[in-house]
């Protein structure tokens, strides 16, 4: 459907699903490979792809037909490499300001919450909300926690938090209503780089539990620009 004067919004069924995600990523890669003239922006989310052109769309139908043709082309799918990233997270009480309350609420031990949170492989659906904020799927159902009724005015950079059925990491200081259970010492958004985020939609994330000492060691390495984030290529 048209979205304003120079954007097309393509929608998939309204579900959060890995098959939908891979279909969107594949189509996005096809469009990128074709380098269609006039496209300035491709922005995917859970079940949609936004295509922004640099000029006003004269014939919406022509645009859509062109995209439909491309979508149905059975050509060899473009090479798409996804990666798994190991993100260090410190669940120490220094950072985990909502962990005790959550444990109490759920009648679970803090240890068991941390265990479940750090033993899951999460899928990056897209980046949005804040520069570098990854929408992650795969949170253990036992950890679903409603957002706070009064959002905090300030959630610190690096905060690892749970909001509803989602978990995420605040890439920068921001107001927010999620429950904070830890902090990651690494950078999730580098405005100086032309590729400002290391992860892409379709990548996987695992959290690696670290101690407070390791947290500060990594923080020092990150500040010096020498920290190497662990990652591996995933074979489908």
């Amino acid at each position, binding site marked *: *459907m*048209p*979205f*304003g*004067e120079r*954007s097309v*919004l393509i*929608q998939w069924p*309204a*579900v*959060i699903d890995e098959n939908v995600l891979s279909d969107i990523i594949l189509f996005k890669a096809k469009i990128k490979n074709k380098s269609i003239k006039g496209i*300035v*922006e*491709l*922005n*995917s*989310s*859970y*079940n*949609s792809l*936004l295509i*922004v052109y640099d000029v006003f769309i004269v014939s919406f139908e022509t645009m859509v037909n062109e995209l439909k043709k491309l979508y149905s082309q059975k050509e060899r799918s473009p090479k798409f490499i996804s990666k798994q990233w190991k993100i260090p997270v410190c669940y120490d009480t220094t950072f985990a300001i909502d962990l005790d309350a959550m444990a109490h609420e759920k009648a679970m031990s803090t240890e068991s919450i941390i265990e479940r949170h750090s033993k899951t492989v999460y899928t990056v659906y*897209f*980046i*949005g*909300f*804040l*520069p*570098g*904020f990854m*929408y992650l799927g795969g949170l253990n159902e036992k950890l679903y926690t409603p957002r706070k009724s009064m959002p905090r005015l300030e959630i610190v950079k690096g905060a690892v938090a749970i909001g509803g059925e989602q978990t995420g990491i605040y*890439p*920068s200081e921001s107001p927010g209503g999620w429950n904070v259970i830890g902090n990651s010492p690494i950078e999730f*958004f580098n*405005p*100086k780089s*032309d590729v*400002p*985020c290391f992860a892409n*939609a379709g990548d996987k994330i695992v959290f690696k539990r670290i101690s407070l000492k390791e947290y500060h060691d990594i923080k020092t390495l990150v500040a010096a620009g020498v920290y190497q984030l662990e990652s591996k290529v995933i074979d489908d």
Partner: protein
Amino acid sequence: MIRVLKAGLYTTIQDLGRYGYRDYGVPYSGVMDAYSGSMANVLLGNRAHAAVIEMTMTGPILEWHCDTSICISGADISPKLNDIPIELNKPVQVKSGDIVSFGKLISGFRSYLAVLGGFKTENIMHSYSMYQGVTKQSKLFKNDELLIDVPLKGFAVKHAAIKIKETHFITKHIEVFKGPEFQRLSKAQQGLLFAKGFTVSKKNNRMAYQMEESLENDLEPIITSAVLPGTVQLTPSGKLIILMRDCQTTGGYPRVLQLKETSINILAQKFTGDLVYFKLRA
């Protein structure tokens, strides 16, 4: 160099925005009123993407340490050069030692000051537009020193006669298209969107304008999806939020309308208490 002696209410450096990074969660930013921002550049002979000063309701006090030309467009905040009133939409020569200041707000809400060659601040992702978390500085402060991007010798000699669209500042009509979730509204709700006037509430800034009036709303939230400047969201409480240039890249409220790009510029000149009407475009 230009020194900021006083910053004013909310003064930033903006160009036409930061495009191509929404997939990393980076907003467009850029001049709120692209019509007036570009006008100031065009009248000086600058390229359209040159960075300008955007001021909001009150202006800064600027001390010039170079000889050049400037042009002010958009809201009339009674601009003065060494305490003598200067015209809007006309290139004006400034010399080293001159002071540019502003006074009372006469019309509009956001004014633009362009300098020959454009301003130069931190370049992040091919844009000078200030945005917290992306650029180090999110607005101008007292004692900031501004540089010129492409310093040119001499003054602008352009005397282009451009007629400013008066309606840009006085019209109450905001032209819109149907948004992705428009069809989910009942016929009655759709009718009300265009029959009622909506007043800009106190909650208006570069990210969004929230409107005062409520609309009965029984729509479910959507799965978080793309939004754009000009997207009109309907919140669970029934308030309309019109997203502006600094808006987030995604949102979960139903997107009922989408502003025409020229209407985003028109809305950028409105402020608390102003009444607007949505007009549906085919």
